[in-house]
């Protein structure tokens, strides 16, 4: 019955899933960079950077992602000359949002490293940034991987929210197919595809964790 329909729709669904993965990978990548900067701000002795990071995290964790997407897409152009198309909006909103969550993850991981490591590095003549980059941050990787994996999975699912600005990722592809055909069967392969993606990435992260735990 529906099987034939699903098979014909598969290329479209896979393409949607491809966009979902792309959105997640890119957003996690920029989210990690942003999160690292925010975490360093939170750990900095400079009160300004600390406050600035705190404010950012408060703002992006305290409002719904859906609102952030609408805000960038619809509200920003009304009072600034800045306009973004749907695709950049999706990348920006997801990156900014995951940056706030990753900041707290990274901060916790860095803070969990023994203070003696920074002291030993400093006693060897390293400056703060050198010690952070070469000694402290690399040690936080292993502790960073499991919560980052969780954030990745959450983001993969939350990326479905950008369907509201007409991004044809997996979720929107599915609902378009159902609406046009009047048949909701497409939600079954959609669910299976999400499950496949989350399962694969969970596996990848557990492999990564193993790889980084050799020295401990």
């Amino acid at each position, binding site marked *: 019955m529906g099987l034939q329909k699903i098979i014909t729709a598969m290329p479209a669904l896979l393409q949607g899933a491809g966009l979902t993965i792309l959105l997640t990978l890119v957003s996690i990548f920029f989210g990690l960079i942003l999160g690292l900067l925010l975490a360093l701000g939170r750990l900095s002795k400079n009160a300004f950077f600390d406050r600035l990071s705190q404010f950012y995290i408060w703002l992006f964790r305290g409002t719904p992602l859906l609102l952030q997407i609408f805000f960038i897409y619809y509200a920003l152009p009304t009072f600034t000359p800045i306009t973004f198309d749907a695709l950049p909006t999706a990348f920006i909103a997801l990156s900014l949002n995951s940056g706030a969550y990753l900041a707290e993850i990274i901060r916790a991981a860095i803070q969990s490293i023994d203070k*003696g*490591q920074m002291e030993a590095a400093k*006693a*060897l*003549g390293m400056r703060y940034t050198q010690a952070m980059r070469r000694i402290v941050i*690399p040690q936080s990787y292993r502790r960073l991987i499991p919560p980052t994996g969780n954030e990745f999975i959450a983001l993969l699912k939350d990326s479905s929210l950008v369907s509201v600005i007409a991004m044809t990722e997996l979720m929107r592809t599915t609902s378009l197919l159902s609406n046009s055909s009047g048949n909701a069967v497409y939600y079954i392969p959609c669910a299976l595809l999400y499950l496949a993606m989350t399962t694969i990435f969970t596996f990848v992260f557990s492999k990564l964790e193993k790889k980084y735990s050799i020295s401990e």
Partner: protein
Amino acid sequence: MIKLENVYKSFGKLEVLKNINLEVTKGEVVCIIGPSGSGKSTLLRCLNHLERITEGRTIIDGELIDEKVKGKDSLKISPKKVALVCAELGMVFQRFNLFPHLTVLENIIEAPLTVKKIAREIVMEEATLLLKKVGLEDKKDEYPSRLSGGQQQRVAIARALAMNPKIMLFDEPTSALDPELVGEVLEVMKQLARDGMTMLVVTHEMGFAREVANRIIFMDQGQIIEDSSPEEIFSNPRQERTKSFLQKIL
């Protein structure tokens, strides 16, 4: 090599060092003894800027590297210069503080490569010699967690020596070790002393102090109570407090 003038250090209201005056000349080995909380670690840490003094002056190798007058910073040299001078002080910690994500060899070459920017071949050659010196050339590719405490501490000494320090600071280097591992670390330190290294050693190893030290300093409640030769301090301490401390630990 080291000169402290009227140094004070407080943590908030807690005065940890009070009017410390101390001079250590080139090639001297000075041991610091004293009860827990007397400020021994803090004294060492003030020398390489892990802590900043709250009053007084610290001079390393003729360079004024910290100065506070009435609590105000009046230091004129750049942070970069301070870092350079501090790199002339090697430090060995009670809990080793090796970098667990790096192998033994990588621990040793890290700072010469990234701080001094010395060519890799030269650094590797030096590291091999240092590992031989501390008797661990066969462990160069191990991670620290795979080594015994005594081996880890010897790597930590080699790591500090790789920066070619003029002075070595030891903060209770054998206190975290099982008794049977203490000897191998002390042996490396004795060899260093014989090679003419200037050393400031916080320790409870009285045998080592008696054998190697040129001077022994007894600290109590943030002050230097006594500063004399090992013979004198062990046989005939001038201060009552020194006498009662030594009676307790000997």
